[in-house]
């Protein structure tokens, strides 16, 4: 058995002698032992090993231990020891001895190599379980042991992970276990494990080291099985965001073409000749049926697996438990975020009651948002401590709730509600609740509804019963009323939730006598011999039943003068009193009895000087007010009459207390635009007295139509119009005035209204004096068609217009009379005048005479785009335009300077009172209009008509109003004659009859216009038309236009 070459010839026996020496000597002679090393595997013995020199002698001298190995186990001593090793020959001759001193620090501690007891795979979870013994029986209790475990993978044994596992030694041999979950399914390829240990012997002073690695244990992958194939893992559930490795194991003769995860192709990771994998990073949530992973092999074969990626269950929210019957506790909650996992991977719930230890599994419908789980009510248990456990393959959570069941009562809907009663004010209600409520009191709420009163709630508390019928009585109901009742209940002492309402049950109470007498008014007939009595029907709540008749009695003191029973539906009657007065008593009757009587006296006190006032329209009512009358002691009555078509108006009234001084009258019968007349009566101890009349509208509207108007008179520069009153029913409000708009315009059906035409020459006259029924429009152009629109207005707006077209008359001859040629000594031969100037050269601004020495005259032409309302009294609220306060329109005036040669007037001024002529040429010009039209005094009409003041201006500025009302006094007219420019002819001699004949509207005799002075705005009148020779002429022949044209060629 000794075949070693160095020892085959000699049998060396090493003899170790241990002596108690403190130190050792080392002798280096041949054959001597050397390099002694001592190692401990436990704390009891050490193992010493040494070498022997090849030249050693053989023999044996002394020994303590004899061994044929160069190794010996020596009990561990507490102190240092000396070891003497002698090497002997097989014959016993010692040929080498050496002594070693062994100190504690020289000894190494190396634990024994651990042995793996088992390495078990769990393929479903890709987990390896490693088991080994800690061999702790040889060590003292409590030592720290460290276990280094290494996991290797694939045929090449690539290290996957290395972990250190810590344990405490217990002086017993303990089986230790360690689990490791692989990031790759274990089927994909082979996995290996090995282990070593390190024991931290704290009081050991020598060198401590790791044990050797254990032998490798392995778990073979499917790729090592002859028929192993498939895609792994199978049907695995992972959390959203996980990194997942999926492998495809196939037969040896196949190749993987591709692997897809859902629709995506992933790069392959080679594992072995029969296995490859893909790595999915941060997996997103799957569809309901999971995400397919498909491995396509050569020959287009396919294999696959499904990966279910979802979420761990969310913590249940709003966990709430209640009972409806004290038999079952119903717990509800909201599941929170869906897990995305269904079927057998769905989230599962269980309800644990900790006090009783009872646990129930909850069958929940995944499709419902709110989950429900039932738990039986336990006998003699009032408080429940619930824990709702939630789990799915990814994780688990829970939610807890502690409830006192008596405080979580949600009764079921009351059933079988019935109503009984044989009274006008009381009923009994009965209902049934399915449940046992003997532990608590119930609070039930009865909803009482009727058609003519507000909904009421009546609470009633009662002891709970066991599947009982409950009863409640309702009092103070209204007679003859159809009621709807319904009931709901809750716990009385600790309210939690109301039950649902029961179905509605109807009941009608019986009739009772009317609660009060009717509201009464009376009126004497115009003859005074009979009295008409009116009463208002009682409301449903007052009638207490169906009113069948009214009893009307008339008493004079205690004597009944007359009695009548008036059946429904009449609400008035008439009794003949003659000149007598009486007290009228009215009683309403129904099937249950009569009302208290209502009384009113027929006495009407005389009234003096009754005034009529206006009420204020509020839009939704009519505001009336009155002074406080001291003698009125029993209130005020406002009476009015509703008229509906041809029938006599129906009397209505309203009573007010004595301290009232105003009221807003409202009625569903009031209509906008209708005038109502109210009579205010005061109730005095001796009778009723009419105090005043009030008229008004609920809402004022624009008049329905404009007043009819006609043209009374037309001249070459004015039109006189007259209009009629509008009937009250057409006014629809209190009339505030009229608007007369006018502008040049031919009749044209397509023309818009004047106010909408945008005509810059539109002028508007606002007439606020409602007594005025005519208006003369002045300063018009001759032989010109005008459109006139007349409108009426109220506070509610302006009526539609009535329109007329009028053509003013023509009269240019008058120029010859009023503006005779005034010779200019310097320019006597230079008079040049354009012929036929009336026929329309509108560019000609004024008369030009050349040569002459021009004076500058400023001609102002008004070119205002907006119509002007010429009124100084009152502006209509609905007026389209406004006039500046100063009456001027200077900003819009166009100033044109033209040459003008002032005529020289040789005759004396006809009005000697004009003592201060104005003008640089020493000529006094008298207003041409003053000849024909009486002028309004400057004090009365301080604003100058802008139209009339535009253009040519006489040098003598006089205030002139274009608006001349026909009703002006003759005195004013007379005084006006003395002012302004005066014609140089004797105008008294003129025959005015013919020119002033009224012009017809739209007359065909348009060219017949004559007589009125032309507007000084226009210069056309200065040249008479050729065909106007037949026109009447003034009788004064002293001066004419013919003289003016005398020096012109061709004339």
């Amino acid at each position, binding site marked *: 058995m000794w075949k070693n070459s160095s020892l085959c010839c000699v049998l060396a026996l090493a003899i170790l002698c241990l002596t108690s020496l403190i130190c050792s000597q080392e002798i280096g002679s041949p054959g001597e032992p050397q390099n002694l090393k001592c190692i401990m595997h436990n704390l009891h013995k050490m193992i010493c090993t040494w070498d022997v020199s090849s030249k050693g002698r053989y023999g044996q001298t002394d020994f303590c231990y004899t061994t044929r190995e160069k190794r010996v186990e020596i009990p561990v001593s507490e102190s240092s020891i000396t070891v003497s090793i002698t090497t002997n020959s097989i014959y016993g001759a010692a040929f080498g001895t050496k002594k070693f001193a062994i100190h504690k620090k020289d000894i190494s501690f190396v634990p024994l190599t651990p042995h793996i007891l088992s390495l078990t795979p769990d393929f479903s979870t890709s987990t390896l379980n490693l088991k080994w013994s800690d061999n702790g029986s040889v060590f003292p209790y409590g030592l720290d042991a460290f276990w280094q475990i290494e996991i290797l993978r694939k045929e090449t044994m690539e290290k996957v992970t290395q972990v250190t596992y810590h344990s405490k030694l217990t002086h017993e041999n303990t089986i230790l276990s360690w689990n490791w979950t692989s990031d790759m399914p274990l089927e994909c390829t082979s996995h290996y494990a090995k282990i070593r240990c390190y024991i931290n012997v704290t009081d050991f002073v020598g060198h401590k080291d790791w044990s050797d690695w254990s032998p490798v244990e392995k778990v073979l992958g499917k790729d090592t099985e002859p028929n192993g194939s498939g895609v792994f893992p199978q049907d695995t559930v992972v959390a959203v965001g996980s990194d997942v490795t999926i492998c495809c194991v196939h037969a040896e003769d196949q190749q993987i073409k591709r692997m897809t995860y859902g629709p995506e192709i992933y790069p392959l990771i080679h594992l072995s000749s029969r296995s490859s994998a893909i790595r999915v990073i941060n997996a997103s949530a799957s569809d309901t049926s999971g*995400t397919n992973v498909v491995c396509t092999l050569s020959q287009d074969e396919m294999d696959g697996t499904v990966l279910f990626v979802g979420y761990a269950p969310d913590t249940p929210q709003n966990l709430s438990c209640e009972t409806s019957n004290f038999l079952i506790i119903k717990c509800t909650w909201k599941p929170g975020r869906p897990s995305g996992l269904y079927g057998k991977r769905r989230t599962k719930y269980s309800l644990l009651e900790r006090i009783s230890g009872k646990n129930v599994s909850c069958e929940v419908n995944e499709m419902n948002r709110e989950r429900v789980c039932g738990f039986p009510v336990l006998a003699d248990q009032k408080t429940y401590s619930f824990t709702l456990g939630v789990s799915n393959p990814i994780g688990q959570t829970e939610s807890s709730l502690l409830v006192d069941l008596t405080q979580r009562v949600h009764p079921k809907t009351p059933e079988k509600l019935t109503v009984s009663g044989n009274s006008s004010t009381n009923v009994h209600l009965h209902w049934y609740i399915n449940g046992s409520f003997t532990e608590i009191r119930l609070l039930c709420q009865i909803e009482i509804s009727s058609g003519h009163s507000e909904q009421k709630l009546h609470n009633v508390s009662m002891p709970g019963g066991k599947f009982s019928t409950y009863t409640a009585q309702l009092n103070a109901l209204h007679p003859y009323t159809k009621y709807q009742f319904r009931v709901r209940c809750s716990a009385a002492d600790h309210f939690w939730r109301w039950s649902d309402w029961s179905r509605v049950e109807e009941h009608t109470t019986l009739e009772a006598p009317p609660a009060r007498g009717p509201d009464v008014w009376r009126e004497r007939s115009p003859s005074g011999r009979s009295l008409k009595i009116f009463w208002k029907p009682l409301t449903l709540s007052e009638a207490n039943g169906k009113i069948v008749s009214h009893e009307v009695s008339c008493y004079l003191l205690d004597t009944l003068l007359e009695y009548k029973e008036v059946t429904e539906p009449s609400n008035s009657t008439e009794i003949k009193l003659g000149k007598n007065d009486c007290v009228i008593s009215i009683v309403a009757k129904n099937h249950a009895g009569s009302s208290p009587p209502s009384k009113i006296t027929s006495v009407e006190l005389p009234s003096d000087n009754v005034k009529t006032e206006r009420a204020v329209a509020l839009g939704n009512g009519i505001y009336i007010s009155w002074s406080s009358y001291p003698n009125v002691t029993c209130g005020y009555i406002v009476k009015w009459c509703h008229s509906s078509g041809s029938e006599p108006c129906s009397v209505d009234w309203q009573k007010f207390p004595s301290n009232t001084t105003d009221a807003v009258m409202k009625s569903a019968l009031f209509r906008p635009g209708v005038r109502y007349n109210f009579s205010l009566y005061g109730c005095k101890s001796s009778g009723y007295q009419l105090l005043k009349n009030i008229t008004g509208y609920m809402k004022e509207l624009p008049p329905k139509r404009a007043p009819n108007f006609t043209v009374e008179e037309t001249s070459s520069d004015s039109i006189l119009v007259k209009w009629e009153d509008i009937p009250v029913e057409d006014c629809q409000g209190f009339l505030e005035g009229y608007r007369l708009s006018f502008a040049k315009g031919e009749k044209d059906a397509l023309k818009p209204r004047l106010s909408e035409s945008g005509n810059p020459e539109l002028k508007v006259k606002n007439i606020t004096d409602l007594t005025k029924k005519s208006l003369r429009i002045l300063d018009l152009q001759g032989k010109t068609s005008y459109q006139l629109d007349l409108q009426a207005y109220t506070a509610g707006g302006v009526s539609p217009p009535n329109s007329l077209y009028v053509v003013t008359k023509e009269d240019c001859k008058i120029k010859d009379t009023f503006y005779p040629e005034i010779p200019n000594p310097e320019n006597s031969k230079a008079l040049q005048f354009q012929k036929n100037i009336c026929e329309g050269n509108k560019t000609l601004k004024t008369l030009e005479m050349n040569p002459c020495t021009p004076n500058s005259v400023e001609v102002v032409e008004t070119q205002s785009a907006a119509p002007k309302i010429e009124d100084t009294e009152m502006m209509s609220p609905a007026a389209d335009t406004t006039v500046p306060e100063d009456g001027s329109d200077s900003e819009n005036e166009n100033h044109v300077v033209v040459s003008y040669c002032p005529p020289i007037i040789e005759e004396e001024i006809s009005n000697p009172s004009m003592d201060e002529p104005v003008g640089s040429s020493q000529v006094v010009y008298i207003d041409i209009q003053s000849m024909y039209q009486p002028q309004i005094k400057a004090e009365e009409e301080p604003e100058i008509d802008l139209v009339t003041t535009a253009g040519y201006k006489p040098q003598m500025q006089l205030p002139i109003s274009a608006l001349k009302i026909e009703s002006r006094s003759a005195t004013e007219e007379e005084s006006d004659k003395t002012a302004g420019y005066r014609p140089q002819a004797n105008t008294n001699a003129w025959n005015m009859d013919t020119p002033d004949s009224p012009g017809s509207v739209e007359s065909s005799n348009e060219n017949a216009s004559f007589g009125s002075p032309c507007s000084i705005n226009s210069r056309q009148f200065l040249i008479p038309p050729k065909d106007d020779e037949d026109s009447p002429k003034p009788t004064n022949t002293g001066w004419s236009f013919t003289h003016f044209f005398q020096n012109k060629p061709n004339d």
Partner: protein
Amino acid sequence: MKFVPAGVFPFVALLLLHRRLVAGRALLVNSPSTGCPINSLCRSNVHEQTRKQVALLNATAQDLFSLYLKCQGEPFSSETDKLCNPNGVYFPTFRVNRTSEKEVMVAMYKLFAFLNASLGNITRDQEELNPTAKELLDRLHNTTKTTRGLISNLTCLLCKNYNIFQVDVSYGESSKGKSAFKKKQQGCQVLRKYVQVISQAARILLPHLSPA
């Protein structure tokens, strides 16, 4: 007449059993006669009813298959030919060139008995995998109901016309216990084959059932 491929479990289907399953579809109108226990269940319009049922199945098969593919996720829709190749699964043979009406009726019975069972498996699997796919589940339920009615009517016809009241039926491999992917794939394979075969059945059955 007995066809039992490898891996397929043979069953003897008693027509009486089908009568119980589809009671109400085929009504009792005559007293039972000897031999065939349920020939009296046939109603006068059973031919017409059968034809309409086959026509209805044929009309709805493709939509059912398309919806099934859509609900299984990719790549079932894009790789239908490879994933749903029906060669790997059992399906009753249904040859067009059968000679006798009797053979056609028996083959038809085997076909719809198989389909009825397979549709039951598919419905069960989809209720687990796709509980939210209401339309798919409704279609599967409706198709199964129609198939049951059809089996009832075929039972009547076989009894009444040929006095056949016992037919061996193979139901194929159950998907129970298989992986989700295999369940999806097997359903896909069966339905794809169903689409093909039901159109053949419609072409064959309708002339046979048409009144002469």
